[in-house]
């Protein structure tokens, strides 16, 4: 257990668990909105933030959080407009982010190795201060992603419907963008800015091979984010590769296993038969109502509803129609 007795490895593994939980938690909402690539864009923009930190001497984590959040809000506002030009504007924001980042890193006199450690992660660079920041931010992201699940689900699933239920749709959309920015920044130490998006998307894609509901997908994605993060960090300790690459390759391996499994499970499910009584009643077939203690008429108190050539009576959520000496479900 020499690996776990090394303090920098303890920190790296803890950071991996935290980002492995937070990234798929936010990623589930991004995938649901079909914005799987948003994390990529934020990662590009965050690089400029890191470079600003290196240039000015401020902690790169904080400058990256600020710049990535500004970038995420800009991306969300452009998306909201749905203009044709928004697509090109987004592309330019991404290019500007990465080019500006590389330029500023160069001006700061940092080495290519430093740049690589931010782009693809590095097990040796998680400082105790970084770990505190990652812990607090991951905690906030997880509380919001899980606590606001019904609201965020509704907004991501059908924005217009959410608006008509009175939800502050724009505020929730911006919240998701900011959560994504924060997650990208804290994941740059483990998976790195260029591959963080994979940790947001791949566990979700793997989970939904095996699930049918949103809640179960979210929970399974959290587990599927943690496992490759831990395995990837350990792998990069024994074999000297960037941890981001190891984490993402392991996560993709999980998807390749789940994909045929999910196809098989879905085929088996299709044998199931829908509920018969409801379908028959709706299809106009003869379904008899429960025993009646009274006869429906104008005075019985149950609302009358005209139905083609006869009258139905609304009785405890069902429509009853007289048929010979009993009532039918209509």
């Amino acid at each position, binding site marked *: 257990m020499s690996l776990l007795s090394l303090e920098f490895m303890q920190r790296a593994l803890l950071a991996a668990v935290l980002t492995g939980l937070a990234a798929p938690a936010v990623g*589930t909402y991004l*995938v*649901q*909105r*079909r914005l*799987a690539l948003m994390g990529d864009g934020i990662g590009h923009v965050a690089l400029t933030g890191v470079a600003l930190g290196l240039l000015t001497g401020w902690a790169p984590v904080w400058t990256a959080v600020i710049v990535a959040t500004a970038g995420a809000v800009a991306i969300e506002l452009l998306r909201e407009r749905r203009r044709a030009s928004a697509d090109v504007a987004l592309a330019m924001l991404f290019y500007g982010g990465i080019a500006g980042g590389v330029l500023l890193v160069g001006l700061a006199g940092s080495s290519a190795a430093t740049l690589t450690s931010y782009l693809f992660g590095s097990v040796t660079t998680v400082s105790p201060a970084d770990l505190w920041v990652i812990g607090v931010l991951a905690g906030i992201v997880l509380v919001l992603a899980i*606590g*606001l699940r*019904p*609201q965020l*689900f*509704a907004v*991501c*699933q*059908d924005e*217009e*419907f*959410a*608006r*008509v*239920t*009175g*939800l502050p749709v724009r505020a929730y959309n911006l919240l998701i963008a900011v959560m994504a920015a924060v997650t990208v920044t804290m994941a740059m130490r483990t998976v790195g800015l260029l591959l963080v998006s994979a940790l947001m998307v791949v566990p*979700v894609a793997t989970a*939904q091979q095996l*699930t*049918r*509901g*949103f*809640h179960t*997908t979210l929970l399974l994605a959290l587990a599927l984010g943690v496992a490759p993060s831990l395995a990837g960090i350990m792998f990069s300790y024994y074999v000297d590769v960037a941890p981001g690459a190891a984490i993402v390759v392991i996560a993709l391996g999980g998807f390749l296993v789940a994909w045929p499994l999910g196809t098989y499970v879905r085929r088996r*499910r*299709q044998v*199931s038969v*829908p*509920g018969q009584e*409801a*379908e028959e*009643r*709706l*299809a*106009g077939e003869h379904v008899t109502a429960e025993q009646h203690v009274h006869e429906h008429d104008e005075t019985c108190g149950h*609302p*009358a*509803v*005209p*139905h*083609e050539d006869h009258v*139905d009576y*609304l009785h405890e*959520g*069902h*429509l009853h129609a007289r048929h010979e000496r009993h009532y039918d479900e*209509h």
Partner: protein
Amino acid sequence: MTTAVVDVDDVTVTLGERPVLDGVDLLVRAGEVVTLLGPNGSGKSTLVRAAIGLVPVQAGTVRLFDTPVDDFRDWHRVGYVPQRTTASSGVPATVREVVAAGRLAQRRPFRPASAEDRAAVDRALDLVGLTDRSDDSVVELSGGQQQRVLIARAAAADPDLLVLDEPNAGIDRRSQEAFAHALRLFVGSGRSVLLVLHELGPLASLVDRGVVLDAGRVVQDGPLPVPSTVAGMPHEHAHDTEPDTRWFG
């Protein structure tokens, strides 16, 4: 005089350069079932969307339950069924999860669903006949069943007004019947409905009043002719006098 549930007064809507609605009035009173009819592009969808505040209006006023729509907060009183061919999104969701979103006007953030919320979702699923499919993923359902999921989602709020945008577009006969059944139940309890229809189909006997739009203006507003026989169903396309017998072969 009965209260106005929806009161659209002299509304003009312009989307981009194009005027879509031009001085349109629309009134839905409590307990009324009003349907918007008219050819494609006549502004039907824009009018219902303006009536619930999804589309900003350039001129005129929109009131919901006697409150200007911009100040309206009692959103649990409105159930909206958007025009859509699918209820699915990027991540799988069960029928129950989608329907439960209809309760969010009543729920507060960070609070679990109450027993009343769960009971309302159960009732909405029963209303559209999908109780047995509640734990299935919506993508496993047919198009008509998915449309019923969206109707159940709107009904879960227990609204006083249902707003439906082409709920019958491209769905199978069985789901049309199920929908007509759900609507009869809803209307039977004295509540209001505003719906956009392309053809009346099995709903004709429920509709109190038809408002016909053409090129962004109201060209007719009044009771629909009562169908004399089922096969001779009157047809409400402003540009088309052929009787439509598609649902009654």
